């Protein structure tokens, strides 16, 4: 397996009054292409900070993050935005759908940002929503959908641009066990028989973590074990 994403000796230190708080402490990790990695750990252990740095939402205080050999840390913001759009997909813990757009428009949003022609992106959005079981709810806005439905729209949105890496924060939190299992298959692309996608997920659900190819345990900003 080739390494698709690599964190090299990354640290994240936040100012807190006159003191500082170290959220991540000289952490190094490698993520193999096409594999599911579950990041687990207690609250405040640094899981979300790690995800932010890996996804390029934030810059490490020291160290470097690379994707396919390209340093995300060194990229200017504008380049990084285009890079995220082309290579990464995201599922946020509280879905974070755009409230003024309906389900289909939410899924189309990253395609629209990538200037995909309207017909093509509409077809893709409808297809993805059908795959997550929301084929008949495409015109519903987030406030007209249940938590589980919103989560599935978020999953469809993450898959829209067919990214090589998907970052997910509790992606199956509001789904029943069977649906959650199906969603994981969908996220990795293993069910499609196509080239498998890399999935990096934060979860408290040990059942979900057990399905991962690799589990990374974080405690106090350091690797605990399993890396």
């Amino acid at each position, binding site marked *: 397996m080739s390494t698709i994403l690599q964190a090299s000796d990354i640290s994240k230190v936040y100012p807190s009054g006159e003191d500082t708080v170290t959220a991540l402490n000289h952490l190094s990790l490698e993520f193999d292409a096409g594999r599911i990695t579950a990041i687990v750990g207690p609250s405040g252990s640094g899981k979300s900070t790690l995800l932010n740095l890996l996804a390029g939402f934030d810059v490490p205080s020291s160290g470097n993050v690379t994707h396919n050999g390209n340093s995300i840390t060194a990229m200017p913001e504008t380049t990084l935005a*285009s890079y995220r759009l082309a290579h990464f997909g995201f599922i946020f813990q509280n879905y974070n759908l755009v409230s003024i757009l309906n389900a289909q428009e939410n899924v189309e949003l990253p395609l629209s940002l990538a200037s995909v022609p309207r017909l093509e992106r509409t077809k893709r959005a409808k297809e993805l929503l059908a795959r997550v079981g929301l084929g008949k709810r495409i015109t519903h806005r987030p406030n007209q959908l249940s938590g589980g439905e919103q989560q599935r729209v978020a999953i469809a949105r993450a898959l829209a641009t067919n990214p090589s890496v998907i970052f997910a924060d509790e992606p199956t939190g509001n789904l029943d066990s069977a649906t959650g299992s199906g969603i994981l298959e969908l996220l990795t692309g293993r069910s499609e028989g196509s080239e498998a996608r890399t999935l990096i997920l934060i979860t408290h659900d040990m059942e979900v973590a057990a399905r991962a190819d690799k589990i990374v345990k974080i405690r106090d900003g350091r690797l605990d074990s399993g890396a």
Partner: protein
Amino acid sequence: MNFADLFVLAQRGLLRRPVRTFLTVLGIVVAVASMVIFLSLGEGFRRALGAEIGNVGPDLQVTLAGNESSSVFGSPIPDVPLENAARFESVASELGIKQVIPYILTARGSFSGQGYLIGGYPFERVPLSDIYPNLKLLEGRLFTPADSLGNVAVVGAAAAKNASLKLGSALRLNRDVSFKVVGILKKGDGFTDSFIFVPFNALAKGIGIANRATGIAIKLNDAGDARKVATALNARFTDLNAKTQGDVLSILDKAIAIGDAFRFGISLISLIVGGLAVANTVMMGVYERTREFGVIRAIGAKPSFVFSLVVLESMLLALIGGAGGVLVGYLGSFVVNFAVRDLVSVSIAAVTPRLILLAVGVAAVLGLFAGLLPARTASRLVITQALGRN
């Protein structure tokens, strides 16, 4: 993302809070409408004066040189010596002058709507139709050569109404002098509706002016020579100032432009208030949608995309308000014209294409500036903070 998609996002963003958006648009409507109504006054004056000057037969107006207090038509007190008419007659064939017409203009009445102008012309030499070709008689008669010293008057429609004059009525000029109305003109759409025409000599005698005129109008054989003849007359008679219709319009335009600047200054206050309302609405929208902007940025939108989105929202607000303002201003100009139609007998307010362009342009600039700060704030959001992380 193409513009159509960006537009849909901006429009949806504004419709999230329809009442707030409506009230903000209403503020812009009021601000732009007041600007349109204020500036339509200048446009109406320009249009009316342009039409009036063009309708008047004489190609040149001559007044005394160096009298800055004079209006473009002459001093309020007749001060141009009549012998100048003879001086112009002496060079008439050389310069292509067809007619030399001394005139006296005097105003009567007040701002109460009862005002009119008395114009004294030598009708025994020059028929009224030669000076104001568009005037039509409603009843009675026009002047005859025998009227030279007769106290007779031909009255414009608005002047007749304002001064309560009918055919055969007496128009009292002062304690000793009055004029008998022998003709009433048809209602037109110009200042001449507020005119009362009387013979020059009779008016001069009536107001105690001897050998003086307010100004001297000159008709040329070829109106196209007006500039050349004016230059020649000004070179030859340095005590006088000959102005072409273009000069008169230019002077009036300058005066109107000063009025425009003053009125625009007043409307600027409401425009600034409207702009602040837009900025406030857009900024509140940015704060309320911080998380959404964070999501859009996280999934791959560039900061410039968020900036454009917010500026577009701001400009949409201002442009919708601007369009509404033009419409309300247009209706307002009708109300103004209706209200003052008896006072000035012309449409003093006019919403012209250039005024519409100005209003829309001002609204667009307003929207642009009002959106800059919120757009900057939105485009600089830190993704992790916007998402509520860390």
